[in-house]
């Protein structure tokens, strides 16, 4: 797979040439060909790419040019370009969305705006939203420090959330200038606006709303936040307040869009980063693949096992890299998503160190959110004071918490989004010295793609789009009830709530159901809420149906967010093994029928993991959008019912890849999803047409495999079926490269025949895995041109053989155990689709 890449030596010398001061960076030295050949255990030319991100000096503007003297004198330094731009836009009464990197000083922007507002009117107030409580309390500290010490202003700042005592809450409501909270909190505090003293003052004087780390609000959470913000704006309108909005996000492809969808307001984008950056070396590292991994086994389960056994798991490879760096006196922070958690990762690192030619002792600590507070503080402290050589962590240390900086980071398996990746990389680099980051590729199609196309990470024009949608009527309907409880609904509210048609239709629906006043009139004194009290308390931010499963640990504790129903069925069936915050658990019991359903788990320590298979049926299709292409191919987007039964699971060992037990029954009833989906409808004769054009033999079904599938064993149908199956998998696997979606929240189904008027021949579906849909399959439908092209290239270029491998089309979540799969036919089908897309224009 790396035939066309320059040798390591060439790349490293490129490295040294790029440095202008003539000195070889330490990272360069430690990871040079010579050094690695010498001292790296089992060196097999794993480096596939290195990238030097050059340093960048600050682009500044004197503070006096932007803010008044009173504020400028307090600031210890000039403003960066993006800070200046943002503040000028804000002075012009605009809303801004700022997408510069972490630690580029985004907080100062909104803090100075708060200061300006305060100087103009001491009664002015600001509301700041953060996605996590940890971030909220960090920011409270930061804001207070700057106001007191640098700006010398008596601005009262306070956190208002579940941990705040009632007495303090009252004082904040009645006196604070700035209140910090999180969306779940705002959801339940907003209805108190006319009941708790102080909100009236606060909202009346609101001049600024800050939404921090807004890229976190996508998918299901994003939908809820979008509605909570609309409810807020509507209440603010009642209080005659019209604040400006400041949103900060990580780098995403569509910041203006995202801001608009979350808030309903237009924002101007500020994206050119003026803050200084040290230079960085980023190394892409590919774990070696034994020849024996090129399995010829017909049984895909066996192929997967062979593959996993042969390939050094990225985790143990990452451990070796970490050990090598630490042995060479570079304090290293490793981020891992591996199955076995951080404890085992730490042990692996110690073992690797023991096997290392250099004779040194290194100290290694694991870190994850499940450790006690004291232990975590201890590790953070050790990092800050350089008292530990290596820390193996989950993404808990990605942002917010201050640990100083380390010399190097190692990322074990691509974390799924660019934001995550760059946030991890950002932890490396002390002061002006160079930073080194290594990405060790995991056994996943995305990882393979990135290692093959490093430009994906480093080119500016491949940034994922955030996906958030307010189309789900079920979620909207719930928030409409919450809004009605906040104030009676009137026709003027339609501007905030979906426009007149959607608003009046849903109001009528609820009136007919008796939870909104039946005789109430939107035109008269409004429509009042008449359902059970506190509807907002029954809105779950984790799902679309209000049903939340609580995760309870028998004989222990677990701090786990509530689980939405769809996810509970998929990942938390009885017997499922999962990793959370660095610790392994097994589900002992799950009760779907109780009014407050619970998932019971127990702590375990094991080398096993589980894989669930499912049966799927799609019915009741309704078309909402249709894009006819050339050559008889059509694209559709719409809604339907997806019936999924997660019926069986296998227990595998991650060290050997073998099946230890199973298939075992899960005992779960079917899950019925009413959701959104897209489908590619191919012409009736596409099977014959494709196979006729194929100049390779047909695939033969393996013996005794998959006796339960609806796909035929007949070689032609089997082969072609493998093709559309491969196309479906490929697009799902690679969609996250383009869109910020969690591909465990989407699913697919491919079939040679489906009874529906829009489907004359074979087809494949991609659907949202959440009831009511949250915009994922819609985003895929809208971006199909890019996705299909990218997928086709990746499948065609994977050198693994027709039946595919985990790096291209095999998926762990396949309900059909990855059978049949044929990358050759799949490539042909995708090519037909691409041609049809092109000719349609």
């Amino acid at each position, binding site marked *: 797979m790396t035939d066309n890449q320059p040798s390591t030596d060439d790349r490293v010398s490129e490295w040294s040439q790029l440095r202008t001061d003539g000195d070889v960076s330490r990272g360069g030295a430690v990871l040079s060909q010579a050094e690695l050949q010498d001292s790296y255990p089992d060196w097999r030319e794993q480096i596939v790419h290195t990238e030097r991100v050059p340093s960048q000096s600050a682009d500044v503007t004197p503070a006096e040019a932007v803010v008044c003297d009173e504020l400028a004198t307090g600031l210890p330094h000039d403003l960066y370009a993006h800070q200046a731009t943002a503040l000028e836009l804000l002075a012009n009464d605009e809303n801004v969305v700022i997408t510069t990197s972490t630690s580029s000083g985004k907080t100062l922007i909104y803090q100075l705006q708060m200061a300006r507002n305060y100087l103009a009117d001491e009664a002015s107030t600001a509301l700041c939203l953060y996605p996590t409580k940890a971030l909220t309390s960090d920011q409270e500290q930061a804001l207070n420090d700057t106001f007191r010490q640098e700006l010398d202003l008596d601005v009262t700042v306070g956190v208002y959330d579940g941990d705040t005592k009632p007495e303090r809450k009252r004082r904040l409501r009645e006196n604070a200038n700035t209140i910090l909270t999180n969306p779940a909190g705002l959801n339940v505090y907003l209805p108190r606006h*006319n*009941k708790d003293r102080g909100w*009236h003052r606060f909202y009346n004087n609101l001049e600024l709303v800050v939404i921090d780390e807004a890229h976190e609000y996508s998918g299901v959470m994003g939908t809820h936040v979008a509605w909570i913000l609309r409810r807020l704006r509507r209440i603010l309108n009642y209080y005659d307040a019209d604040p400006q909005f400041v949103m900060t996000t990580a780098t995403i492809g569509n910041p203006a869009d995202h801001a608009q969808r979350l808030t309903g307001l237009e924002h101007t984008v500020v994206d050119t980063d003026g803050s200084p950056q040290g230079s960085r070396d980023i190394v892409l590292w590919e774990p070696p693949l034994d020849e024996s991994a090129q399995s010829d086994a017909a049984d895909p389960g066996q192929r997967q096992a062979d593959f996993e056994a042969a390939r050094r798991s990225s985790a143990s490879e990452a451990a070796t890299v970490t050990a090598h760096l630490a042995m060479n006196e570079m304090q290293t922070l490793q981020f891992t998503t591996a199955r076995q958690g951080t404890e085992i990762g730490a042990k692996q690192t110690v073992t690797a160190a023991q096997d290392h030619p250099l004779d040194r002792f290194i100290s290694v600590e694991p870190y994850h959110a499940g450790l006690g507070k004291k232990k975590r503080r201890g590790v953070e402290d050790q990092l800050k004071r350089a008292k530990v050589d290596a820390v193996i962590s989950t993404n808990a240390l990605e942002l917010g918490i201050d640990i100083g900086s380390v010399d190097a980071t190692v990322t074990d398996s691509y974390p799924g989004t660019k934001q995550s990746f760059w946030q991890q990389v950002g932890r490396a680099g002390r002061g002006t010295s160079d930073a080194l980051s290594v990405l060790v590729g995991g056994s996943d199609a995305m990882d393979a793609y990135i290692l093959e196309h490093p430009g994906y990470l480093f080119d500016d024009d491949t940034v994922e789009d955030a996906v958030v949608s307010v189309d789900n*009527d*079920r979620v*909207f*309907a*719930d928030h409409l*009830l*919450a809004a*009605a*409880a*906040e*104030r*009676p609904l009137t026709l003027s509210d339609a501007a905030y709530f979906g426009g007149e048609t*959607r608003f*009046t*239709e*849903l109001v*009528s*629906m*609820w009136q*007919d*159901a*008796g*939870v909104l*006043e*039946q*005789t*109430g*009139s*939107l*035109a*008269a*004194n*409004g429509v*009042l*809420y*008449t*359902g*059970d*009290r506190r*509807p*907002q308390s*029954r*809105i779950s931010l984790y799902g679309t*149906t*209000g049903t939340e499963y609580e995760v309870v640990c028998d004989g222990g504790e677990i701090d786990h967010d509530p689980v939405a129903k769809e996810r509970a069925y998929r990942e938390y069936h009885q017997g499922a093994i999962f990793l959370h915050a660095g610790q392994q658990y097994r589900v002992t019991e799950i009760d779907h029928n109780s*009014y407050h359903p619970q998932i019971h788990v127990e702590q375990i320590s094991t080398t096993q993991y589980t894989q669930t298979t499912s049966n799927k049926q799609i019915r009741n299709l309704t078309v909402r959008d249709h894009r006819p292409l050339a050559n008889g191919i059509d694209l559709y987007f719409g*809604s339907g019912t997806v019936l999924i039964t997660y019926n069986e699971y296998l227990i595998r060992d991650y060290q050997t890849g073998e099946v230890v037990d199973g298939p075992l029954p899960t005992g779960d009833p079917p899950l019925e999803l*009413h959701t959104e989906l897209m489908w590619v409808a191919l012409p009736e004769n596409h099977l014959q047409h494709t196979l006729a054009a194929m100049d390779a033999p047909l695939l033969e079904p393996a013996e005794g495999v998959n006796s339960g599938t609806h796909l035929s064993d007949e070689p032609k149908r089997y082969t072609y079926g493998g093709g559309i199956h491969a196309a479906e998998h490929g697009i799902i696997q690679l969609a996250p490269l383009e869109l910020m979606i969690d591909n465990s929240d989407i699913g697919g189904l491919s079939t040679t025949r489906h009874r529906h008027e829009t489907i004359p021949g074979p087809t494949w579906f991609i659907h949202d895995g959440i009831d*009511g849909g949250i915009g994922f399959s819609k985003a895929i439908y809208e971006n199909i041109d890019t996705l299909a092209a990218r997928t086709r290239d990746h499948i065609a270029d994977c050198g693994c053989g027709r039946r595919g491998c985990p790096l291209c089309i095999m998926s762990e979540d396949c309900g059909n155990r990855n059978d049949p799969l044929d990358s050759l036919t799949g490539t042909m089908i995708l090519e037909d689709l691409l041609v049809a897309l092109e000719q349609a224009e």
Partner: protein
Amino acid sequence: MSEPAGMDGSHSESGHNASSAVTTDASDPVTLPALPPPDATPATLLTLSGATVSQLRPETVRGLVETVAPDIVLAVGTQSNAVAPTLSGRCDVPVGEPGTGQRPQGYRIVGSGVTVVTLPMRGTEVQTERVVVTPVGGERSQNPTNDDPTWRADAVCVAGTELSLDVKPYARKTSLDGVDAYRQRLPEPWVTDATAHLSTSLRAGFTTSLPTPGSTTAVDVVGVGQSATDLGAGSRGGSIDPAVVTVYANGAVAVNTIDPATIGLRGIRGIGQRRLQTLTDAGITTVKELAETRLPELSDLQGFGRTTAREVYTRASAQASDTVQHLSTGSLPRGEPVFIDIETDGLNPSTAWLIGVLDGGPEEGRYLSFREEEPGGTSHLDAFVTWLTGPAAGRPVVAWNGHNFDFPVITEQLQAHYPEHVAAWDDCYQFDAYWWAVKDDGGHVALPGRTNTLEDVATALGWEPTTTGIDGETVAEMYTAYRRNCAVAPENAPEPEWDRLEAYCEDDVRALATIYAHLADVTRRDATDQPQNRSMQGSLADFT
């Protein structure tokens, strides 16, 4: 209206005989809800589901039936066929089961002018001749018969299971299913304005009007049971509470849910499942028995310390003797109180169209009405604050559950319409008597009455309303319907019975004054009951 928030979980609703239509166009006027005639005796039904009766302790079921004293029980919800067997032998109230049997069963509620008829199984015929009628109340010894024609003069209350609601958010529609089946089953004599239609497959308190093409008579249906549809965030979900349904001969229906956890010992604050078990084991099964237990015995029981025993005992005494009992030291505001009660258009209201004020004691006090002078008018708010800060300046303003309702609503209304009055209103001593009695410092007194609602407490203390058959919800619905008509068809908007609504409001402030008088008595007694403090303190007078 002064429904305290979630105190006992009972979700007060009222149904009515108006055309609160599922399919009413937003621009059509609606009929005002009909009020039952004052002083009419209704038929009282208690709805129970099989799931409820099997989950509750036998004493609780008995206590429920005793408290409500229904004429008949109606089996609803899941496992409705378990209700009759569970109740038989424990109480002699007949149990009606709609949707079962071959023939309609009629229960002639003597004295109310209402006969409740439960419809038989689907597919069987419903004719007036086939109804088997059992008289309830009056001479019990009569046997069921279908010869007795006296029931024909009664108003009929039909109870059926045909209808169901289906909420479909993705289609943005709520549909009512089973309408045709139901309509076709009904004999013509049962489709009059005086007929009440109850559905056990619709949520208790839900009301709707059945479309009746070609007929001028509306068929209004009231839900008394449980619905299978998903109401999203609008419903607490879970098992349904029993409901008390009162049916009047003019077709008016009221539905109020009742929380079993307020019945008997379980309803005493401080007695949860464990302590309940302990008491039962010790042979104490009723509130009266608890009130008669000696304190030392009580505090000896497992799980009862001295403080808890005293508290629990005091609460039981209050309930058993229908009096207010002292719990912890506290004092009421000084000065002659001004009692208020507001009427709005709902619990999250857009307006407070009536502020009822009582100046003086419960009997002789003067009732003042500050009411909107035109639909949606606000000058009465101005008048209220002017009076409050003028003639009534410096006096405490007392409301029941004022902190959660009356006071914030008035504040919000003033902020919106008379912001110049907000400061003066804020300066008034706003006193929530309910909060003082029940919440402050753990509660200063133990109140009588099954729940802490204004009406329950006052009734237990001997207060009697002058107008019956009306409650806060009805008033709000009446007003909302009126306002809608004013907006949609102003020339023809029929006026509600304002006198009756005012009478209800006046009743409430007098009820409040009644309770307050008892609170004052208790705090005075409490003060004088501590003579040692008094005698120890000298007073200045002693030394001059």
